[in-house]
């Protein structure tokens, strides 16, 4: 083993100057940097809160329930955006989680070892595509696809459901949900895969030795064992969908109202901020409301992330050598 010393280091190392001061200073310095991260997080919340104050003073907690967003009359409410965010995230989870689990099961349990690593890389490639490129692709490829084939079919077959009624717009809630589903697949499948791989081999063997088929052993020994880890993965996916901005902004249609139909345009917390913030007049009530939306977004995303990481940490930490 070669010692990684550079030339001249030896002399410098063996003739330390003021070593105990140096140690203290260094520890304090790096500790300050670590602490700075916590300070940064708090600062973000504080600065947002300060700028959101005028809006909070004007509307109070009713802000969250109000469905009106009218810059002309200075009436603002968060409801349409909370609705849009929750619904698109829900669609993303419903579509994306089963596919992610399927991938995780395939990679962790069924694929031969030689495919596993390249396949993992390929799925990670999905994660490396920037959100705005997803939006670009969504706008020019996914939107025409869904508008031409999927939406009419849904309205034709399931049109008795109120969510599939009404005029079909090309940029709408459904498309945003679909693109979010695609975007959360890398996260959810990667973390689920880690959870499945953390299940000890003797559990699988216990099921197999009872005469279970491969799938049955996965079902009773692996999936239930790893369920808290998988739940954490789903939460992380939810957190990702919740905060996703660019791809959603480009395909959701940007309408600040609640509508039951999934074919209608909508708006999410992050997309309204992306659209309206830079036009906001400094000190105006509108800007205050937008920042308040940002605060809501941050706090909820924080909660989801904390909860998700606790679950994943707890599960992986319980298994031997578990590291996030």
């Amino acid at each position, binding site marked *: 083993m070669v010692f990684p010393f550079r030339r001249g280091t030896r002399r410098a190392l063996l003739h330390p100057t003021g070593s105990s001061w140096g140690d203290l200073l260094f520890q304090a310095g790096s500790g300050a940097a670590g602490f700075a991260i916590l300070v940064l997080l708090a600062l973000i919340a504080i600065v947002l809160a300060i700028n959101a104050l005028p809006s909070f003073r004007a509307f109070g907690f009713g802000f969250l329930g109000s469905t009106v967003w009218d810059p002309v009359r200075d009436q603002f409410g968060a409801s349409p955006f909370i609705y849009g965010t929750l619904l698109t995230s829900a669609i993303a989870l419903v579509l994306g989680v089963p596919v992610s689990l399927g991938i995780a099961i395939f990679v962790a349990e069924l694929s031969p*070892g030689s495919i596993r690593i390249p396949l993992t890389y390929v799925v990670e490639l999905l994660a490396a595509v920037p959100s705005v490129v997803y939006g670009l692709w969504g706008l020019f490829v996914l939107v025409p696809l869904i508008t031409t084939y999927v939406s009419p079919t849904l309205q034709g077959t399931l049109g008795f459901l109120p969510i599939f009624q009404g005029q079909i717009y090309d940029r709408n809630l459904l498309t945003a949900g679909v693109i979010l589903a695609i975007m959360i697949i890398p996260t959810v499948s990667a973390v689920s895969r880690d959870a499945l791989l953390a299940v000890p081999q003797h559990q699988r*063997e216990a099921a197999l030795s*009872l*005469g*279970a088929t491969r799938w049955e052993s996965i079902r*009773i020994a692996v999936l*239930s064992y790893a369920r808290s880890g998988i739940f954490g993965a789903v939460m992380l996916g939810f957190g990702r969908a919740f905060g996703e901005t660019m791809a959603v902004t480009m395909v959701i249609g940007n309408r600040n109202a609640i509508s039951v139909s999934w074919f209608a345009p909508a708006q999410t917390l992050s997309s309204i901020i992306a659209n309206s913030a830079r036009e906001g007049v400094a000190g105006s009530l509108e800007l205050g409301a937008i920042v308040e939306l940002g605060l809501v977004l941050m706090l909820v995303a924080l909660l989801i992330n904390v909860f998700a990481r606790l679950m994943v940490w707890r599960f992986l930490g319980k298994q031997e050598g578990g590291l996030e």
Partner: protein
Amino acid sequence: MTRKLAAEKVSAWYGPKKAIEDISLDFEEHATTAIIGPSGCGKSTLIRCLNRLHETVPKARVEGKVLLDDKDVYADDPVTVRRRVGMVFQKANPFPTMSVYDNVAAALRLNGVRNRGKLDKIVKQSLEQAALWDEVKDYLGKPGVSLSGGQQQRLCIARALAAEPEVLLMDEPCSALDPIATAKIEDLIFDLKTDYTVVIVTHNMQQAARVADTTAFMYLGHLIEVGGTRELFERPREALTESYITGRFG
């Protein structure tokens, strides 16, 4: 004195490494056969070949035949084989997300038994056979992992028995247990051979002497000697066997 299970020139590899070579061994019906030998001699590998568990390890390979009722298990569906040849592992591994009841009923549910009355009956029967019923009959709903180590292992035995296997393989079942729990399980093994054919791997010679009718001695992947337990321990034929038994190595 029928031959229930037999290994015929069985060799097994982990990747390029050969773990056992040309093992031929008969297992008598309704009797207990012990396999002894020092660590790494291949005894666990051998019994994992008997229920086709060895091949589930990546890059593992098996050659030779294993005959169950004179039919080669490697020509049959592994799922069926594993139901007929059950296994108990070194460290008790009940399913942690299931209750005591559900652990025992697992094999039954897999095979489509839904009738609650029938499940109750077989669960009770299996727990009685594993000498665990009296201790858990009021706690059937508790998680399987909430039991003590010895109880968990007996739970695993009950779980294996509920599948109604014909052969029971036991891979050092007592190595992680205290003497009292060990004694309970050894008594159990003695009773089990009335209904099943038992194969037990152990590194504890005294245990083999206590519970087994036939004993086989393995060393470095080879079968050195096999015979009636008493003869093997009192008048071993091979010098290597004698050295092991007298404690000169292993």
